[in-house]
């Protein structure tokens, strides 16, 4: 057993961090806040760098790496607050043409959510709907009104879950004001199936949860750095605020949360066990959300402004926490696991 990152894994992580710092630095991030359309050139560049094709076998033009590597890359994306349906494109790179190269952008949406939400509706070429297979007994607690898109599909495909693809222009949608300025959302009101997509849906959900958790981890680590950086610089009472224990203890707790989440996320990437993925998502959601809140507190009034990035981390963390298994669902699943 050696749980540390390998040389190659560290190089991948560092390389990704450099690429994102160069192509999606602070200025680009703030520009994206003002104009949240996805940058197609950047998307293609990421595709060219193997960002999406990471796990495709080499003979299929991929990089031939595994889930742990995908986790490291998405951790970096989370750290940089890189917007876009990154998880969807990572998971569908082998299933939908053009996605691996960054030529086409696809999003995933979960049918049993209420409302059914679609990320980046203005930038996607296609939407993939997944239904069933979540929660305790297969299908989740219903797609809302019952005649929504989830309802129709659940009858046909039952508990094991299925997926279908829809061209973006064939989806009926209602406007929805997204809490996260970097992630525009639309509410799907009717989704006509263009074609079923052969996917292992339980596996897709598991991996989507894990990769989402990886982004949460990256965000949680980043907000510790932001808090510590601010605590070293900002002075009150004639000394840096980081001298005060109240601030130190907030920062220490943030680090502990991030490290606990890291252990859980990395282990789940290695074992791919459903229970570990569920635990990892739960702990990473907590780390991202609570670290962002504490980071805001450490920043004082400045933290409450639009100009400081803390709110962007918090809003994205809230958004991700709602996707691929909420805290309530995770806790219930893990409770059931204790009796198994």
């Amino acid at each position, binding site marked *: 057993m*050696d749980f540390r990152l390998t040389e190659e894994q560290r190089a991948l992580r560092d390389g990704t961090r450099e690429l994102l710092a160069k192509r999606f630095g602070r200025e680009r991030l703030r520009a994206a806040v003002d104009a949240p359309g996805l940058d197609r050139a950047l998307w293609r560049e990421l595709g060219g760098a193997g960002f999406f094709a990471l796990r495709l076998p080499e003979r299929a033009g991929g990089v031939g790496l595994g889930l742990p590597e995908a986790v490291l890359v998405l951790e970096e994306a989370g750290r940089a607050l890189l917007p876009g349906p990154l998880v969807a494109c990572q998971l569908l790179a082998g299933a939908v043409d053009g996605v691996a190269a960054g030529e086409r952008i696809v999003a995933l949406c979960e049918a049993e959510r209420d409302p059914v939400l679609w990320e980046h509706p203005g930038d996607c070429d296609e939407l993939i709907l997944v239904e069933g297979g979540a929660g305790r007994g297969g299908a989740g607690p219903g797609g809302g009104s019952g005649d929504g898109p989830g309802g129709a599909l659940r009858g046909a495909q039952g508990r094991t879950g299925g997926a279908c693809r829809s061209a973006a222009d064939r989806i009926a949608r209602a406007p929805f004001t997204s809490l996260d300025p970097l992630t525009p959302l639309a509410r799907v009101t009717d989704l006509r199936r263009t074609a079923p997509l052969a996917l292992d849906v339980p596996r897709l959900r598991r991996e989507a949860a894990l990769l989402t958790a990886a982004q949460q981890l990256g965000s949680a680590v980043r907000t510790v750095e932001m808090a510590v950086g601010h605590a070293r610089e900002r002075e009150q009472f004639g000394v840096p605020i980081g001298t005060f224990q109240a601030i130190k203890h907030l*920062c*220490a707790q943030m680090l502990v949360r991030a490290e606990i989440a890291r252990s859980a996320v990395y*282990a789940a990437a290695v074992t791919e066990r459903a229970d570990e993925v569920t635990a990892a998502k739960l702990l990473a959601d907590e780390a991202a959300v609570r670290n962002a809140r504490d980071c805001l507190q450490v920043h004082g009034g400045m933290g409450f402004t639009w100009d400081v990035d803390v709110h962007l981390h918090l809003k994205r963390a809230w958004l991700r926490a709602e996707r691929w298994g909420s805290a309530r669902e995770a806790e219930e699943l893990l409770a059931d696991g204790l009796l198994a």
Partner: protein
Amino acid sequence: MDLTYSPEEEDFRARLRTWLGEVLPGLPPKPAARDWPGRRAYDTAWQRMLFDAGYAGLHWPRDAGGQGATPTQHLIFLEETERAGAPYVGANFVGLLHAGPTLAAEGSPGQRARWLPPILRGDDVWCQGFSEPDAGSDLAALRTRAVRDGDSYVVSGAKIWTSHAEVADWCELLVRTDPDVPRHRGISWLAMPMDAPGVTVRPLRTLAGSTEFAEVFLDEVRIPVGNRVGAENDGWRVTMVTLSFERGTAFVGEVVACRRVLGALARAARANGRWDDDVLRRTLGRLNAEFAALWRLTQWNVSEAQHGGGVPGTGGSVFKLRYSHARQELYDAAAEVLGAGALDADHEWVADRLSSLSYTIAAGTSQIQKNIVAERVLGLPKGR
């Protein structure tokens, strides 16, 4: 990142499992929680069995009498013994988990030859005389004086919260050997025989009703200079080595135990109907994630230690902070499951709930651990 164990490691696990399966059924019944002499006898007898089977001081270096096992093998040892319900280190805690490793790392060859084998055989029990009535979190404020007189130090002062003092043979004792220099620089680390004239042990009753720790009064106790480990006045550095062992590896086996208890809680809750309580059920589910992650964090720390020279790093503080709180939450949840049964002091979970209260205090309080993480890991400025 590799979480699989190598064939040698699996082989080691299998042998250990077989051995545990053979010897555990023949063990005498556990002594009562409050019977310290009984517990000493029980714990040291178990240590002797480990010694005879070649499992004593598994992760200690070979030249210290250990087996030279890797941290990973040690992890497997802790996991398997706990899973099999083998006795806990108990009275041997200080000797095996921090005094011994400190002696192995810092002692002279003669000191190692003298003190390490009896720890491994279960002949000698050690205790830790660091804390004093006026020096707890602020350990460097300790005042117990040691004045050189020929070949001896003459030691006077008082120690407190000394676990197992009642039944210990030796004490790792911190004393002030130079009162005139900055406080961290005038401390020395001594091995003191507990039966030396002038040593008085007064057991203190804990909130759990046991006499697990004691006050130790030192009245002109003569300790040979040869019992000093490390140079005179260099005791603070030696102490940091001791503390890193104490925080780094000492709680590892307990995580496995907590996972076992969590499963038992869930089954008990289902049997008595409390499983229908959403809040309780979700708490148990959350704790499942918590202990799973703590176990993975342990593997992470062990992997780091295995490649970082053997002395555990600050990962120990991160672990201890989270674990101590998780353990308290676990036994609070147990009380929820037990209902009015949580008022039965003889119930194992209730006794453990009481003892869990010490986890955020002993071995450095949570507040002190947070200071350590903030200052030494995150690099925030020193302050008050």
